Structures are given as structure tokens and as C-alpha cells.
């Protein structure tokens, strides 16, 4: 590889924040505007989905403000800071994932939450959308963008450990998005296509082995059910039938805000969380759904653009990684609600009710802004 990257450069000074940030406060007006539009839209829809509860909106508003704070803060840190801290952040996330495995809180059949004293409960797997791009970027950078066979093995281990832990929670959706995200990062930084072919062969060989010898019976059952919702007509099958009915009955312009019968008569499960797009589809119709998806596409495009303007390889890799994973969440969530993918239980970033996803997504945006737009490390 290494087709896109130059050799080493001079070392940077290590300041925690970019120097003289009074003048160079990092801020991307396009991304922030799009994000705020999305958050505002999300709050309006949530107000309806929560049954016009102001207290719910207040809670979510506080979380979103916290998320925006994280975005602002994270975007001011130096690239070198992220680089230095990448392994620590990664190790921390792994620890938390083990903690989930050991002391996590189970809900709806999977164990994803950690309830530490003094903190609101949260999903450590959400941190992977930041720590995984960071560690992959860090590793590739330390290898000076020249990856050898052993490096791929190392990457598989680095990525496989947290992804495997997430998979076992089980959170198949997140695990899949992370794997595809990492693959996309490698693709975007120019890894030769034959490595991907090799990867596919590896998956093809290992899949039956994992299926038969690593998975327990209940894992296999769950995965089979995932692809056959009709086997579970009152569970996943019910969800899909009702969400399609909600979306379809909305028509072109929807039934009007607060008027969704599927949502407000409890036919639609998880209307304010994972299935929020179905509420939007029912109450606001095709027009606003399409607009929302375009907004996501614009955010994706803006983040990709920012990544390509990064002055350093680390920033590019981390930035694209965060972008692809963000997009993965959006796509898998909407496709799931529309019955194109199995119901895996993922939130719609920035719109679904809940703290972990919104805060980590915005923090990830902050990290992407930081690593893609800070020039000082190179300039100095």
C-alpha cells in the first residue's frame, strides 16, 4: 500500500489543545448546521413519538446539549493527542466491553448496558464508533502505511476482539457495522483489492467453523430468527409488519404530526427509539423521510470531504472510519425499519431517543473534525 501517503514529517509539539485557539477555534459551519437541523427535526418528531411529553423532550434536550458540548470539546483537541491516546482509549473500551459481559444489564434479550454507580447507564459498544477508527488509524500510521501480512493478522485481532465481544452481547447490527466500517477504512486508504478477496475467502472458511463450534445453540437460533421474522410473528415479525404498515399508511405527505395511529395506539413498537423513522414516515410521509435521508447523505458527504482535506494520513483514516460507521448506523436502521434488513435493534443516529448513541455520535463528529481539520501538527 502506501500509495497515497508521503514519508515522515517533522515532529509536532505536544500541546493538548491546538495553539492559539482563540483565533483558530475549529468549527465546520456546514456540518454543525446540518447536525443542528437534524437534532431539531428529531426533537419535533420525538415530541410526537413520546406522546407529547415535555419531560421526555427535556431529557433528550439535555443529552443533546451534552453531545454538542462533546462535539465542540473533541473538535478542539490536537491530532497528536488523539494519536497518543488511541491505544489507551481502545484498551479502555475493551475493559468496558468485558465489564458489560460480566456485570452488564440485560434488556430485550441482549446484554448491552453498563450501569456504573454515579453514572447514567450507557452502552460501551457505542464508544467503538470512536475508539475503533482511532486504533485502526493509529496502527496503520505506526506502520507508516506499509502493511504486511502480519499487520493484517494484528488488525484482525485488534478489530476482532471488541467486535466479537459486541457480537456476543449479542448486538449483531453493531458488530456488522463495525466490521464493514473497518473494511471500508482499509479500502479508503488504498489497501490492494486482493487483500479484500483474501478476507472474503477467510470469512467463507471461518464462518462454518464459527457457526458450528463457537456459537451455542441459542446464538444459531437467534440468527435464524433474524432472517425469518415470520418464525416469530409476534416478535420481530410483528415489528416489521407494523413498521411497514406505519410507513406505508403515511403516504406522500403523512397523516400529520401527532396523528399517527400506528405509533400512538402502540401498534408500532419502539416508536421513539429504533423505529423512529416509521413514526416520521407515518406522520410526515415520503417527502420528509426522503428529506431526512438526504440530510444524512449530506452529513456523510461533508464528513468525507473533510477527511479528504486532512493534511495527514491518520486524520484521513480516522475521519473516513467515523464517517462510514455513522453512515452504517443510518443505513442499517432505516433498512431494518423498512423491512430490507433483519431487525437488529439499532438506533437512528441523532434522532432516536436515548443518550449513548447521540452523545457518542456527536463526540465522533468532534473527533473527525479535529483530526481532519487541524493543520498545526504538520505546519509546525
Amino acid at each position, binding site marked *: 500500500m502506501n500509495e497515497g501517503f508521503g514519508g515522515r514529517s517533522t*515532529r509536532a509539539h505536544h500541546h493538548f489543545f491546538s495553539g492559539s485557539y482563540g483565533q483558530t477555534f475549529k468549527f465546520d459551519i456546514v456540518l454543525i448546521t446540518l447536525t443542528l437541523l437534524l437534532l431539531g427535526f428529531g426533537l419535533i418528531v420525538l415530541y410526537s413519538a413520546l406522546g407529547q411529553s415535555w419531560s421526555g423532550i427535556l431529557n433528550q434536550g439535555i443529552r443533546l446539549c451534552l453531545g454538542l458540548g462533546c462535539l465542540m470539546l473533541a473538535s478542539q483537541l490536537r491530532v*497528536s493527542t488523539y494519536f497518543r491516546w488511541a*491505544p489507551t482509549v481502545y484498551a479502555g473500551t475493551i475493559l468496558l466491553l468485558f465489564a458489560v459481559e460480566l456485570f452488564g444489564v440485560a434488556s430485550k434479550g441482549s446484554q448491552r448496558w453498563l450501569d456504573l454507580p454515579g453514572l447514567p447507564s450507557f452502552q460501551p459498544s457505542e464508544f467503538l464508533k470512536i475508539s475503533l477508527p482511532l486504533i485502526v488509524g493509529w496502527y496503520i500510521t505506526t506502520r507508516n502505511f506499509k502493511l504486511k501480512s502480519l499487520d493484517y493478522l494484528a488488525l484482525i485481532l485488534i478489530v476482532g476482539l471488541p467486535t466479537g465481544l459486541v457480537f456476543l452481547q449479542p448486538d449483531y447490527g453493531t458488530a456488522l457495522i463495525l466490521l464493514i466500517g473497518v473494511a471500508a477504512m482499509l479500502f*479508503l486508504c488504498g489497501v490492494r483489492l486482493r487483500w479484500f478477496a483474501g478476507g472474503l475467502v477467510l470469512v467463507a472458511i471461518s464462518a462454518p467453523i464459527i457457526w458450528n463450534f463457537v456459537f451455542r445453540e441459542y446464538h444459531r437460533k437467534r440468527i435464524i430468527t433474524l432472517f425469518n421474522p415470520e418464525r416469530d410473528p409476534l416478535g420481530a415479525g410483528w415489528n416489521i409488519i407494523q413498521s411497514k404498515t406505519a410507513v*406505508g399508511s403515511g403516504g406522500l405527505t403523512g397523516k400529520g404530526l401527532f396523528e399517527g395511529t400506528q405509533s400512538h*395506539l402502540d*401498534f408500532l413498537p419502539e416508536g421513539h427509539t429504533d423505529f423512529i423513522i416509521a413514526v416520521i414516515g407515518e406522520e410526515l410521509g415520503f417527502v420528509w423521510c426522503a428529506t431526512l*435521508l438526504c440530510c444524512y447523505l449530506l452529513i456523510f458527504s461533508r464528513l*468525507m470531504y473533510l*477527511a479528504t482535506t486532512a493534511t495527514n494520513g491518520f486524520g484521513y483514516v480516522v475521519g473516513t472510519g467515523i464517517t462510514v460507521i455513522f453512515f452504517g448506523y443510518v443505513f442499517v436502521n432505516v433498512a431494518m425499519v423498512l423491512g430490507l434488513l433483519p431487525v437488529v435493534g439499532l438506533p437512528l443516529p441523532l434522532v432516536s431517543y436515548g443518550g449513548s448513541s447521540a452523545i457518542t455520535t456527536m463526540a465522533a463528529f468532534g473527533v473527525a473534525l479535529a483530526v481532519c481539520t487541524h493543520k498545526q501538527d504538520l505546519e509546525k
Partner: protein
Amino acid sequence: MSTKRAYDPVPLVLSKTIVYRASSAAVVASVLILLLVARLFQLQVVEHERYATQATENRLTTQTIPPPRGLIFDRKGNYLASNRIVPSLAVIKENVDDIDNLLTNIRALVDFSNAEESSLRTRLENAEDDEKVIIKRDLTDEQLAIEAVNRHRFGNILVITEILREYPYKELASHVVGSVRQITVEDLQHLDPVRYRGSKFVGRRGVEHYYEDLLHGEIGIRQVEVNAVGRVMSEILVDPATRGQSITLHLDIELQRVADEALGDRRGAVVAIDPKTGGILALVSKPSYDPNVFVTGLEGREYDRLSARADAPLFNRATQGKYPPGSTIKPLLGMAGLAVNVIDWELEFDDPRGEFQLPGSEYVYRDWNWRKSGVGGQGQVDLFRAIYRSSNIYFFHLGAVLDIDTFSTFLGQWGYGHNTSLDILDADPGILPNDTWKKENTGDSWYPGDNMNFVIGQGFTLVTPLQLATISTIFANRGKWVRPRLLLSSEQPVELGEDFPPVQGVVESDWERMIEALTAVVHRGNKGYLQNGLAWAHIGRNIPYQMAGKSGTAQVVAIPQGEEYDEESLPEEQRKHALFFGFAPVHDPVIAVATVIENGGGGSENAAPIVREVIDSYLADFVATNDE
């Protein structure tokens, strides 16, 4: 490579490969978004109609509103049948995926027998998908509390309110009022499916059955919005139910209670009729049953259990019990003889020994023991004496000269052999035999000996207590007919039917003389001798008003020639039935009563006091009411 792994910036150079790959990522993302938009277009524009319909079907349900059933009152406005609202456990059939799991949940909430379980299974099988199937009716407060605490665990079990029929007087009026019962699959074949959609009960017996059309009311329709678990969120459209008409019966529940208590634990019946209107004031049949069990019970076994009892509490003895009339038939036969002019009030028969033989026959027909010594007859007996002393010999003589068809035709006018009631559908016509009847039913001709049994009210003739009370009414009215009826009034008038013409062939003086004789039964007797078996000895010695009546003692088994009837030695079910009918006051009767006590012994001794108690009570109340 740096062992410190400190940041060592590698500048990003946008090589052709990087630009190419970044561009393809953007294309892939755009295509994926486009795919989602296309899917949205498919669902929201192309297939919109289908999903819109689906969403409407999800939320809208048409429910039927069963009409509240009309109330039933007695003549003084007491509730004989009312409605009450009770909490019940129910489940919507389509919400039951696992019946065993459901049963486990039910058992955690309430006691649930195996019979209830099998009934629930059957009813679930036959129910419509969206039908609420009742699990348990009339929950106690404790059961409700348990349900409320566990509601989250048993999402598909609902607590609903039902309107249930209630019979406040329980056993007391059940043979009159009857009851409603669960509509069964068989019922649905002859009930109007529209009118009864949503109704759970139909009148089964008594007034509830006869006046079903009035009481039921008209069904209402309600379109409601329901949520995912079937809970009603709002009403969209309501076409209210029309409640059933309330009806008032002639029945006087207090008089009913007096009659019931007078009868006590004995098997039998008492019927009291207002001779001016034909209104049935009391109709008691014992033993009785509590009709409320048919309402709350869900097992369907209550009926079987009651029918299996040897003393047949479901059997309405007052309207369906058939008994030989015994001596109560005598005044009618006398009237028959007068009507066809074979006797008059002057004609006397000699009765030296209390024995009678048909010409050319060895068989001796005996009278009952008139004297303490048990020997000797009643001397010269005319019709008047034959009635108040209940002479068999007189009527044997009459039976020797009048043929059965003449008797039978005459008795037919009194309601013998017919159900003359206006609104008691299942009242038994009894048996009024004649020559043809005997040939048809036994294949044999009518013999002179049959006439001998006939004239003392034994043999083939059978009469119900209601018929006996009707006969008492006819005497009270001097031959004028008022047919017995239960209905006093309803919200909209009901045409019950025409009365019959008066009894033919009997002149007014005959009526007055016969009523004198019947009055003598109660007031004269054979004064001075208390054990003579006449009603006077038991009810007539302290009676403050004029009452007329006639007793009867009906043999259940034939006593062989030459043997004595010994009550003590006979098993209970072979002992004589006690009968009595009477009315009062004699000159302007306001009440006519009849009673039959199964295997109750002598009519004067056992039946007459019941009639007197009923009349006493009614007259006291009547005087009190009219004095106000």
C-alpha cells in the same frame, strides 16, 4: 519505526487511488440512500392504499352493544329480575396463542375448576376471532386486586364489565320468572343472528322465556379505535342499544313468600289467582332452585346437576305436575249432572252402609270412613250434602247414569285437558279422558268401572295445580272465565288473547247453591266431630271471613279390594296426594287458591290450611290496602 509510538504525521497525498476510492465510497453511499428512498417510494406511494387500509383495520373495531334487558317487577314494584354490573375476566380469542399458558395464568389469578377449563376450551373454539370470551364472572374484590397487581404479566387477560341478570328472590320466584341462560351454539340456529349479535343470554324458562321479545331490546353498534392490545382508546361512532321493555307481573312476592312458607319443605305447589283479572298472584312449586346459578355459571353443568336430583327442583309442579283431582272433581260433576238435568238439588240417594255396587256386579265400591267407628253410611244424601261431606256413594250413583263423554265435554269447559293460561307456554293440559281417549291410549273401551273411578277423581283424569286454581276462579266468578295470566303491564301493551265463554248449561241458582255447599265445606262440616276428615275441622272453626273450597285426597296406588289404606305402612312416594282449592270472600271473591302436596296425605288436613294461610294473608293485605 518509533518505539514510543509518538505521533509522527504522515502527510496525506490524494493519489489517484485514494481519490478513486473515496469517490466510489460516495457513490456507494448515494446508491444506498437512493435504495432506501426507492423503498420508501414503494411503501408510501405505490403500495400506500394497501398499508392505509391495513392501518385502518388495525385501529378500528366494530363492537356490538348488547341491550340492557328489561326488568321484571311484581305487582308492588319489587324487582323480580334486575341487572347488575359485574367485573369479569375475559380474553380476546385472537390474543390467545397458547391456551395452556393462558390456563396457567388464569389459575394464578382465580380458582379454576377442570369443568370450567373444559367449558372455556369449548367456548374459545367456537368464538369469533375478535370475540371476548369470558373466563370467570363476578370477580371478588380480592380477585380484582390480584389481577391489578399482576396485570403486566398477563397482558392478554382483560377485566371487563358485564351486565348480568340478577334474581333477588332466588328460589322464591324462580318457577314464575324463570331465568336467562348462556346462548349456546344450538340456540343460535333459531335466534335472529343480527338481533342477538353480542347478546350472551337468552330467556330460558318462565316469564324470561315467554316475554323474551319484549325483554331483550335492540342491539347497538359502536365503532371504536383500539390500541395494539385491544384496549378501546376512543369511540368513533355510536348507535346506542335500545333497552328491553320492563314488565310488571300480577305476582305478589309477599304472598308468594307466604305460600312458599306455608308449603314448607313439602313437595308440592300453590297457585293463587285474582278472580277478577285472572292475574296469578302466587305460583309456588317446591322444591325450587336458585336461577342465579344459570347466569354466573360458565360450566354448563348447573342444569345437569339440578335435573339429576330425585326431587326434581327444575320441575314446575304448579304448571306441569299432573295429579288425580280426587274429590275436588265432585262439585264439577254435580254441575254436569245439573246441566244435563239427570239430577236436581232435591234428588237423594240412600247410603246405609257406605258401599256401592254396579247393577250385575259383585265389586263393592266403598266410601271413605265417615264415622269414627268406620262402619255405616251417610244416610239420605242430596247433592248439597254430597259436596260438603264429599260423599262417594252419591257420585257412584251419578256415575252409573251419566256417560263419560257427557262428563268429559262438560269438564272441558272448565279447562280440564287444556292449557288455558295466556302466557305460560309450557303449562301441562293434564288429562281429560273419554271413550276415544281410552281407546287411543290403552286400546280398551271405557267400562262402567272406569266411570266409578272417574267420579271420585281417580283413574285416568289428571289435573295440574294451575288448572285446579283456574277451576277455583271459575267457581268464584260463577262460571265466568278469566284465563290465568302472569303479565300485569308492559311498556307497550301486549295482546294476550281472548277469554273463553262462560260455562254453559248451569243457571245462576245452581251456582249459588253449589257455592253454598262449597262454603259449607269450610264452615259447616259435621260440627261436633272433629275427626270427621272435613276441612271445617282444620280451617273452619275460627275463620273470620266466608270462604268456599273443596278438598281432595288422591290415591297414588290402587288399594286392593278388602284391604285398608294404611298410610304408615306405605313408602312415601305411594302415599296419597293432598289437594284443596278455595276462594274468598264468598260473595265477592278477590282470591282463588289451589294447592297440591305430593304424597301429603289427606287434603282437608294438609292442603286446606295452606290455602287458608294464603287467603288470610292476602285478605289482610287487601283490607289494609283498601282502607288506606
